[in-house]
């Protein structure tokens, strides 16, 4: 994680420029009473008419100057702040994408979304208007303090006592608010999570007519969010008036003590008048300070949330100097592979040898570990025993990128992006896949016909997760997406389940013609695996039966029974 201070240091010249503009603006502000004084004293009092136009121009010039420098200052702060925020967001996204499956399984989408969006927004605010106003407040106050010091050192004691009190209150408030904002940020994430889950599962919600239940669930979080916001307001209500009290009482106290000093003859009445005026000018910066610290506390709390994500490291990493394969042929070997997750044994002693260009079929009961075989092959989890070799090399020694990209996977749960059909097929190799290849892949997946029947054909927008397409259509596009990758290994994880038999048969036929690709086919239908060079039947994470269609048939075991139920013959 790149620290905020580092960003500020990097962009110091931009901030210096913005602060420079700010200083000029405030200084011009301080000039204007001088001009008024000269107009009254010199032009009217002494009749020096010749300097009048110049003074008038001076007034105008101050207005223009404040306008120009004020604009430059604000715009520069906004601009540099947005650039830094953009970079923070970019890095955060990058980091999140590098994390492992286990992290995503344990973290809610809605929560991560609120980190990337809302929490970065808070930090963004602190980089733009908060820091700008803070600088302005500090500068303004310092100038006034200097003026006060020069006027009378005795009275100067009053603000000298008051300022640390203000600072103390500010720090106390920031600390209290920090805790509340921590909770608010947490609840914001919870709100996001509940709403996200509801929206993503809207079909289930509606199917069970559970709208009221869902509303209640959300409302309890909404209520809690409200309560936390009220808690924040209460802290603010407790401290903010303290700033007000100090700033309002300052002139009064100055008057009392200053008056005493005047009566004692230590200072003149004029000095006291000026001092009072200065102490009134300190009012708005001090009041502002309360608000600024409030927003600042929110930003700090959000930054803490980001730090928490950065403390997560990807579990699956590649070695420092990965051994890149010249060109992946697709020989896969599992050597006594086992996998344990959270104390549960998922895979036990799985071995097979799949030479390049051959096909492996995997069948087995629900939860037997079929998909886990693919997970360990693509290193979503690392094996806890044995090893997996790709072209004779342990996959843990390969560059992760190379490993994953040499395996084109069609998943059980089809996930399509809300983008055009063409872009979906291209996904993963956006820059490389040509239109012809997209069409050819769709053709191979028996999807070309229905895509061409759609109004905008290949440019048809697909809704999120493929909404608007039937289950079988989604599966076919996802098969096309894998084929278009032209990877040496193709994995079909139960990916023809929603297809009618004719289409399935046709796709199988098409895939058979794609030689020189190593294939792993997971399925429940005998028809999808029967032509494989080897078929594994998994049971409780172990290989229960193995062989070809014929040898397994002969065995009269699980496979044979399945064939019987499905009406398959030898």
């Amino acid at each position, binding site marked *: 994680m790149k620290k905020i201070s580092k960003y500020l240091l990097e962009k110091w010249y931009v901030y210096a420029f913005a602060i420079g503009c700010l200083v000029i603006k405030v200084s011009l502000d301080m000039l204007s009473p001088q001009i008024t004084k000269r107009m009254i004293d010199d032009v009217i009092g002494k009749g020096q008419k010749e300097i009048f136009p110049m003074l008038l121009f001076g007034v105008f010039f101050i207005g223009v100057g404040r306008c120009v420098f004020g604009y430059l200052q604000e715009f520069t702060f906004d601009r540099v702040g947005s650039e830094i925020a953009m970079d923070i967001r970019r890095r955060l996204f990058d980091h999140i994408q590098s994390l492992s499956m286990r992290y995503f399984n344990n973290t809610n989408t809605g929560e991560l979304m609120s980190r990337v969006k809302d929490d970065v927004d808070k930090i963004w605010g602190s980089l733009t208007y908060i820091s700008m106003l803070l600088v302005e407040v500090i500068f303004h106050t310092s100038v006034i303090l200097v003026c006060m010091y020069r006027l009378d050192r005795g009275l100067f004691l009053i603000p000298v006592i008051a300022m640390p009190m203000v600072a103390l209150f500010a720090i106390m408030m920031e600390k209290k608010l920090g805790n509340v904002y921590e909770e608010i940020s947490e609840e914001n994430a919870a709100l996001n999570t509940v709403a996200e889950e509801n929206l*993503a599962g809207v079909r289930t919600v509606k199917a069970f*007519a559970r709208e009221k239940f869902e509303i209640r669930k959300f409302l309890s979080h909404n209520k809690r969010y409200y309560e936390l916001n009220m808690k924040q307001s209460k802290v603010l209500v407790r401290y903010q008036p303290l700033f007000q009290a100090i700033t309002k009482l300052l002139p009064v106290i100055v008057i009392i003590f200053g008056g005493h000093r005047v009566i004692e003859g230590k200072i003149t009445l004029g000095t006291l008048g000026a001092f009072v005026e200065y102490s009134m000018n300190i009012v708005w910066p001090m009041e502002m300070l309360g608000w600024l610290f409030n927003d600042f506390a929110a930003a700090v709390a959000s930054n803490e949330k980001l730090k928490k994500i950065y403390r997560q490291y990807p579990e699956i990493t590649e070695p420092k100097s990965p051994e890149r394969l010249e060109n992946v042929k697709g020989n896969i070997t599992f050597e006594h592979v086992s996998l344990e997750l959270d104390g549960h044994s998922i895979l036990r002693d799985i071995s097979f040898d799949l030479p390049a260009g051959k096909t492996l079929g995997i069948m087995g009961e629900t939860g037997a570990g079929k998909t886990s075989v693919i997970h360990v092959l693509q290193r979503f989890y690392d094996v806890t025993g044995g090893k997996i070799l790709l072209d004779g090399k342990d996959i843990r020694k390969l560059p992760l990128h190379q490993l994953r990209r040499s395996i084109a996977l069609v998943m059980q749960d089809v996930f399509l992006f809300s983008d055009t059909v063409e872009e979906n097929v291209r996904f993963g190799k956006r820059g490389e896949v040509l239109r012809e290849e997209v069409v050819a892949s769709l053709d191979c997946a028996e999807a070309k016909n229905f895509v061409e029947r759609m109004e905008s054909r290949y440019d048809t927008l697909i809704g999120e997760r493929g909404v608007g*397409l039937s289950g079988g259509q989604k599966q076919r596009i996802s098969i096309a997406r894998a084929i278009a990758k032209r990877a040496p290994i193709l994995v079909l994880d139960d990916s023809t389940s929603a297809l009618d038999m004719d289409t399935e048969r046709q796709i199988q036929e098409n895939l058979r013609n794609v030689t020189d690709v190593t294939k792993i086919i997971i399925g429940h239908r005998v028809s999808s695996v029967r032509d494989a060079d080897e078929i594994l039947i998994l049971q409780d994470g172990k290989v229960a039966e193995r062989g070809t269609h014929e040898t397994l048939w002969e065995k009269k075991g699980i496979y044979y029974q399945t064939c019987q139920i499905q009406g398959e013959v030898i």
Partner: protein
Amino acid sequence: MAVNATRTDEQVQTVSKRRTLARMFYYLLAYKKQVVAVLTIMLVSVVITLINPLIIQQAIDVYIAGEDWHGLKRLGIVAVLLNLTLVLLVKMRMYIMAKVSNEVLLTIREELYTHIQTLSFQFFDSRPTGKILARIIGDVNSLKEVLSNSVTTLIPDFITILSVVGIMFVKNWKLAAAALSSLPLMILGVAFVQSKSHIRWQIHRKKGSNMNAFVHEDLSGMYVVQSFGAEQETKQIFEELLQEHKDSFVDAVRYADAFGPIVDFCWGLGTMVLYFFGVNMILDGMLQVGTLIAFGTYISMFWRPVMNLSNFYNQLVTNIAGAERIFEILDTKPDLTDGETACEMPEITGAVSFRHVTFSYEKEKEVLKDVSFEIEPGQTVALIGPTGAGKSTIVNLICRFYDIQHGQVCIDGRDVKSVTIESLRSQMGIMTQDVFLFSGTIRENIRYGRLEASEEEIIRAAKAVHAHEFIMKMEKGYDTELKERGAGLSAGQRQLLAFARTMLSEPKILILDEATSSIDTHTELLVQKGIEALLKGRTSFVIAHRLSTIQNADRIFRVDNGGILELNSFEEIEK
């Protein structure tokens, strides 16, 4: 149905800004008492603030000049008490206002969310989830400051401005006119900037929404992204979206940041004109110096609230784009509603009939054309046909997830439109290909089918679909916490849980849309037996491609080309 993709901007209906504003402040009307209280407090505060200079004047002119130390002390005590009262009032005002604005936010979000729940699939299908989320969370939050500032800034500042202008005109109308001469210029300038920045803030919100949608999609599809090794690609898209988001911000602040400077400029200009006329009038002997000095004070008393107001206006313009997006959803009429005469659906016996049903998702693209059939209670109906032929559409219509264009869908002889949606759907059990599980325990997930179900009933349902075995194998059994979407379970296990959930709801009509596709053949057989036992004699619709699944169907329909054809026997499929 036009689908909005992640990377394309949404079309937000533009309504007049005034209406959006009026609507936003309408929420404050519910808090009349509080608003009045705040305004009263503000009035008292303004009075005290105005008294403060008088006290100082009194202290200097009378007591200090007269060297009356005791008098000064007494006055000092009064001043301290007065100002402490002021602080107390500020405290009250802040509290009331915070409560009001937070409550309004609570209400708006509640309304928005409740309203979204009434919308039909057409709404959800046509936009990415992340964009709806952006409205529920971000856009609502953006209104907070505007709401609280509206009462505390808008009204008091207007009062101050009006009274200062009044005093100036009473004292010397010529000088007042001179001092305010730059006001029209300011109004023009602010109006110009406003018109430019408003559109840009709208765009900025849309870009933020795109970004949110993309993050949502990327996170939801992380497995796909990582499996395809497409991190660089998605990163690139995200960076493009980020860039657009940032650029749209810079583009907007380029104008919005001019609000303050324009006021500053006009302030300077007005002061110059004031002094030009003022000094000349003094030199001509038409004006006293004291009046000009007083006007100098008035003019800053005038411009400071103007500056505040322009800041507030800027904030308003920035955030009104969020309000527009909220109200747009609130204005989306749910297209599937209970008719005015809708009654509760009595217990369904299970007769389903389609009478000349014609349906299309999009205009002119009919998915079903003049489809008619009658199903008697207790029959099992298999729907077969090529993918995309409309099998799922038929079952969606039985549940009234969409309304048909022509014809009638009846259950037990009642048009599905004539009964309340909730009473209809709660008697249906639909299992689709896409299983959705919620985060929470396994028990809670099954209980979703019937919220008041007992522990025994939950276990019975799980046993019926053979989910009980694998649940018990887990360390915490039914108390196992499921992660989002049921991550950690296999696809088949998720399907079994969803099955148990549907069984628990004891549907009068059961719809299985490829519901067993991820379950192995052996388990599938057991599940079927379980369902049969549990739902004996119920009408059911089965969509499946595996013959084994539909072997026991009473009737078989082949759906193709928008039409439907009944097959006489199982053997006929083989052709």
